[in-house]
């Protein structure tokens, strides 16, 4: 048994006097980040750190405190702070720690020992390959920005006063960059290339570099089209950004607190029958996979939309108790500094049959959307969905030219219903949560242009 798990148990014991519910979460991280420009490493950061978060619940009142200093004195100050905060919170009969449940013994394939064994030089060479692939792709590519390789190992140690004890480790690695291209008129565009995986072997530097270059060149010189209603085909990276907002509308909390455009729609048809949405905390090799969630509940798979019908939402232990359901194991932690928060784990749309090419071939008139600016533009509460977009115009199934500086607008409700084709190319994007979506065709979208 590790010393961190011992420490977690000791703190639970010390703090849980007088019948309080106490939960201790310790995380230990190792991180490496490399940033490069034109083959030269610009920034190289490597470190290890750890921290503890203590959650106390007494009489339905919850308090939380955290610290990065695990000395005895600091740890005691921390749990006492959590107790003090729990005294001012509002009592809530549904607020309690979950009772321990057996954790299924299966290999989720989330830990890669090779990542720790490789040298920093190997990882720098990987990033160099990514960047070279982009820069050498075409002379119009003049630079890359935010060119990064990152990897890390996180180990989680948890114990609570109801007898839960658990630990696991996971790894992750990835690379990201923007390619910047300049056209003859001096105008510039950029688009991202991205790859991430739990295992080193699954990363392909040339694919990442090529993706950035191809996407960027395809939108170079784009200008607005006239304002109109048309079809759009969404690249997986764009679809993931929309699905991330959609996921927030499909939690039990969003329902219980009236923060969802899908309020009161459970059991109803809310999407095209091609749409099946899953949350699966046990997806092998998934960035959002773990044996148990942020409060020690085993993770599970939940079918949220089944062939267009809104069937389920995801739960943590609080919302489950309130609704008289079982937690789906979706209490997520963003490290030791955060309270467990109800959120998706690996959230994705089931792929269909068509290739991306087939989908594009079927579009009479529309926009293939390659990049969007959507900060604040997709609202899971109101369902409003509008954003800036760049892409390629499609006519009679063929690409006819780049488009830039347009807006696309619909509502999340209309978008779900107007999905008319789903690709076979599901790809997970662990940037906005771990969200996955195949290429999608959506009809009846307003494109705002000249």
């Amino acid at each position, binding site marked *: 048994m590790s010393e961190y798990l011992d420490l977690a148990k000791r703190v639970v014991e010390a703090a849980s006097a007088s019948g309080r519910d106490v939960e201790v979460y310790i995380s230990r991280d190792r991180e490496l980040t490399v940033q490069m420009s034109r083959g030269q490493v610009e920034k190289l950061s490597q470190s290890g750190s750890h921290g503890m978060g203590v959650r106390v619940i007494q009489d339905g009142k919850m308090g939380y405190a955290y610290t990065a200093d695990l000395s005895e004195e600091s740890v005691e100050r921390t749990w006492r702070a959590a107790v003090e905060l729990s005294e001012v919170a509002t009592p809530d009969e549904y607020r309690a720690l979950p009772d321990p449940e057996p954790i299924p013994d299966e290999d989720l394939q989330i830990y890669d020992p090779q990542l720790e064994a490789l040298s920093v030089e190997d990882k720098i060479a990987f990033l160099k390959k990514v960047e070279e692939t982009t820069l050498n792709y075409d002379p119009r590519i003049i630079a890359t920005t935010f060119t990064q390789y990152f990897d890390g190992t996180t180990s989680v140690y948890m114990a609570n006063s109801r007898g839960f004890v658990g630990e696991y480790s996971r790894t992750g690695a990835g690379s990201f960059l923007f390619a910047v291209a300049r056209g003859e008129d001096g105008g510039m565009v950029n688009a991202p290339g991205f790859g991430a995986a739990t295992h080193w072997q699954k990363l392909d530097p040339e694919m990442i570099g090529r993706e950035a270059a191809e996407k960027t060149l395809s939108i170079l010189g784009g200008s607005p089209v006239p304002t109109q209603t048309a079809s759009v085909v969404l690249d997986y990276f764009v679809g993931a950004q929309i699905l991330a907002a959609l996921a927030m509308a499909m939690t039990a909390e969003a329902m219980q607190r009236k923060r969802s455009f899908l309020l009161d729609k459970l059991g109803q048809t809310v999407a095209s029958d091609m749409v099946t949405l899953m949350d699966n905390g046990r997806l092998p090799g998934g960035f959002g996979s773990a044996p148990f969630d942020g409060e020690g509940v085993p993770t599970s798979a939940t079918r949220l939309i089944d062939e267009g019908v809104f069937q389920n939402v995801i739960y943590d232990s609080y919302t489950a108790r309130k609704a008289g359901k079982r937690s789906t194991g979706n209490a997520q932690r963003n490290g030791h500094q955060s309270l467990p928060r109800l959120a998706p784990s690996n959230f994705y749309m089931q792929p269909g049959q068509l290739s991306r090419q087939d989908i594009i071939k079927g579009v009479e008139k529309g926009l293939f959307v390659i990049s969007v600016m*959507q900060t*604040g533009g997709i609202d899971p509460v109101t369902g409003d969905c509008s954003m800036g977009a760049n892409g390629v115009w499609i006519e009679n199934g063929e690409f006819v030219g780049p488009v830039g500086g347009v807006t696309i607008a619909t509502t999340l409700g209309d978008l779900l219903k107007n999905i008319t084709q789903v690709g076979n190319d599901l790809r997970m994007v662990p940037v906005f949560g771990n969200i996955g979506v195949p290429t999608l065709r959506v009809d009846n979208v307003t494109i705002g242009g000249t």
Partner: protein
Amino acid sequence: MIAPEIAKQVLAEALRTGGDLAEIYVEDRTSLSLGLDDGRLENAVRGADRGAGIRVFFGNLVTYAYTDDLSEASLLEAARVAAAAAKGNNSAQVIDLTQRKSPLEFPILKPFDALSIREKAELLQKMDAAARDYHDAIVQVTVTYNEVQRRVWIYNSDGLYVEDDRNFVEVLGGVIAQRDDVLQRVGEGFGAQSGLELLDSKDVEAHMRDLADSAVRMLDARPCPAGEMTVVMCNGWGGVLFHEACGHQMEADFITKGTSAYAGKVGQQVASPIITALDDATIPGRRGSFRFDDDGVAAQRTVLIENGVLVDYMWDLVEARRAGRESTGNGRRQSFRHLPMPRMTNTFIDNGDAAPEDIIADTKYGIYIKRMAGGQADIARGDFVFNATEAYLIENGKLTAPVRGATVMGNGPKVLMEVDAIGNDLALDPGQGMCGKGQVARVSVGQPTIRLPKVMVGGTDEPAGGVMAV
């Protein structure tokens, strides 16, 4: 925080492999957050975080290692890790550390502990009640209170030793109004670099009633028309426009890489002659202010654009060394776990001379943006986008119907050249701005009321029949 003798030893260790400059950044951060949701105070969190990062410069390469253990042994180990990542051929020596003081005063009149946690919680309850009592349509309210104390100590081998103490208070409110199938939400916060005197200076219940009023109004909103049209933006938080449209493109990392439209344009006309824009980290009480930036450079006021002419960019130490010039004190980092990068502080467009009501009266057809959610910038294209949460049609010089789902998009450099009216009502935002650029930083934005004669508005409604511009 660290004794100067120990800092000197750690810096010497960091320079052992031939780096030209070494730095220790120490941070101690404590925070309290109280979150009221669904009528209950349920997210009560106290945090303590501290650690140090060791940075070594080898020409254009920067290596970094951080630790959450401030013992001498651990600092020396981090210095070895940072030093071992590269080889240089310098024989730089550590110059004796002399503490530098800042002339800036950011007074704290009422310390964080002047109110008990319970009193702070009661304040949130009052705010919740104010919003709910305002109207039956208000179905959900959230209020969050945050206080953060962030102390930093920076030492470098050029003899630099500075300290900074940054205290933030912020209160964020959000309300949701419902009528049948329609939900509308409006959120807005206020905050400052100050003590609890902020809470005395502000009618917190009126703040919540104001949000509730907006959300209820927006229940009647119709879909926003799409297409090119005139947009008038409110003062204060409307400054998100300059932040997204131009500010990011004037950060030095995009300039030295040549990926910004403003690269190489110093001295040229880049905006309408009625525009003067500044970045000023010295303003007391503002979220983006500090005495020293996270490179240890003294805060300053930088004129970015004067009467439409580009004057300077925003520089951090790394980019300034690369360009062989002085930093403008724009090096900021999220925490000791991060390396600094060029960031905005408090960035705003200066006053013009039009009365704001005249700007609206003088607009035949367009959209008036009163509140908005965040925005985003595409640095290479120079495009920006932001989303309105409260907006109205302007018809024949008057505000008429509220519109929902409006996205405003344009090309920053182009739009700045076209701005054709600037109000005399300069205000900075209420103190809620967070900027994300891989790392999160508190910032302020600001502007007077301004008019953009022709930008793209994304909505779902048919465009209005050909009525355009003034």
